[in-house]
């Protein structure tokens, strides 16, 4: 160990003291360390990056969505200047007039597709690895709810440009719910705020899209990540050095790893 210079010690203290102060009161530093400096199986690799990639796509959606909300106006009444609906005109303005508006809208629009694709790929990976099995059942279930909420976010966001595609896709979507036995017609009428899509529908869906559903999905993602951190990531099940493999005869860790082939497959039943 090299001897630390006096200045180095000073800097260290200047950085660490406030961190210690915060940690003493919140355990935030301990929490971050728990998250970052935990061990994961030695054989995990690119396949396990799909979850964090999905999270990245979601963060892109959050950031771009917040910015878009600063310029978008959820109103179906006619803008007297353009002669078009206010919502549609604000989308036109974001895309055509406002500096870099096209990029942020484009990122939000395509980020949604990327987010959904990554959700499905991530789910496929988890299925392939059997990673939904004990003790990670709840992780899987929160994941399914994230998928559903994500698709609902896509569906509610689809209406907002208030163009023909948006309007009619939403009509069909609302009526899909309307065909559910017993309560369907009530649900459809609630979603449209009346028998048909009207002026209140857009504001309601805007509120769902940027308050209700994001709140729900952020909570679900939080639980999901906590569970993943707590329970760990599984190794590829075919890997010879996977964590948790069964040993031939209580052999010391690492011995004859490749020969064991996972052992008793019938033992599960």
């Amino acid at each position, binding site marked *: 160990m090299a001897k630390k210079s006096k200045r180095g010690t000073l800097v260290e203290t200047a950085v660490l003291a406030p961190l210690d102060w915060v940690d003493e009161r919140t355990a935030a530093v301990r929490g971050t360390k728990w998250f*970052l*400096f*935990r*061990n994961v*199986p*030695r054989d*995990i690799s*690119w396949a*396990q*990056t*799909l979850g*964090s*990639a999905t999270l*990245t*796509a979601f963060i*892109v959606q959050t950031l771009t969505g917040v910015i878009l909300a600063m310029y978008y106006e959820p109103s179906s009444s006619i803008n007297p200047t353009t002669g078009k*609906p206010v919502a*549609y005109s604000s989308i036109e303005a974001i*895309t055509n007039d406002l500096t870099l508006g*096209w*990029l942020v809208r*484009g*990122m939000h*629009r*395509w*980020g949604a*597709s*990327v987010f959904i694709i990554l959700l499905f790929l991530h789910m496929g990976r988890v299925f*392939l*690895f*059997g990673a939904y*099995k*004990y*003790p990670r059942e709840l992780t899987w*279930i929160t994941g*399914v709810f994230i998928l*559903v909420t994500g698709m609902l976010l896509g569906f509610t966001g*689809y209406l907002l440009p*208030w*163009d*023909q595609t948006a*309007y009619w896709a939403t*009509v069909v*979507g609302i009526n*899909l719910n309307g*065909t*559910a036995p017993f309560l*369907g017609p009530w649900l459809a009428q609630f979603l449209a705020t009346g028998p048909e899509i009207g002026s209140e529908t857009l504001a309601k869906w805007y509120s769902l899209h940027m308050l209700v559903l994001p709140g729900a999905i952020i909570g679900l993602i939080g639980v999901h990540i906590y569970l993943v951190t707590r329970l*760990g*990531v*599984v190794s590829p*099940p*075919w890997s010879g050095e*996977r*964590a*948790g493999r069964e040993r031939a005869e209580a052999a010391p860790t*690492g011995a004859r790893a490749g020969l064991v082939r*996972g052992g008793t*497959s019938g033992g*599960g039943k």
Partner: protein
Amino acid sequence: MARDLGELNREDFARYKDDVKKEGKSFFPRALFHDTVMSLVVVCVIVALAAIWYFDADGVKSGILGPWYTEPADPATTSFVPRPDWYFYFLFYLLRIFKWPETVFIATVGIPTIALILLIGLPFYDRRRERRPSRRPVAMVAAVLTVLSMAVLTWKGATAKEALGSELVAFVPEWAQEQGFADDPQAVKGAELFAQSGCLNCHTYLGQGAGNLGAPDLSSIGQTNEATYFVRYLTNPAAFGNTVMGSYAYLGQENLDALGAFLAASKGG
């Protein structure tokens, strides 16, 4: 042998935790490095999609990734053909498959609900400890079938065409070219009427049309009879023993003559 599933599961997980602790690698930076690289790729893809979408399209003019927006919402339209966003294509096509009124709610809520329940319940009905795909034939076959059917439904949904006047009129020059009546204005007018008047809701013509109610293909109908015969047939199909097809006398004599000329000119390309 006497040990139950829960016990074995707990043993597995204890061994997993032990292995990760002893043999694992640190999440930061060894696993997180992969994650960040993947996230960079995701962000780049999103920005690239946004850029391609923006620079290839222009307003309502569609580029390779679709238009910036379509026309403003028009709740009174009689010419718009609604389509959902790509990740709902499978559901869209499912709705076209279930084309019997009695089965509508099976496609709208039945199948999606069952799929969701199966998805949520997965960790509870697949309780075996086995994770290796090669030892989970049922799960793997089910997964492959699901992916295949979703892919097929999405593809069919993306390419689905409707036998509607607003779309079919665009085919008239192609038909005129293929059947060789491009220089016969009456036949061309008849072709436009043929496209607009719902004939292709039941009939097929040069690969277009829905083929409902067992109606025949008309691509080479001109080989069988001449224009005056078709005019008489269209005026009163019942007189020719056809009780399925309605009379088209309401189109007026001039239009019927045009249709007759078109049908007579359809010699089968």
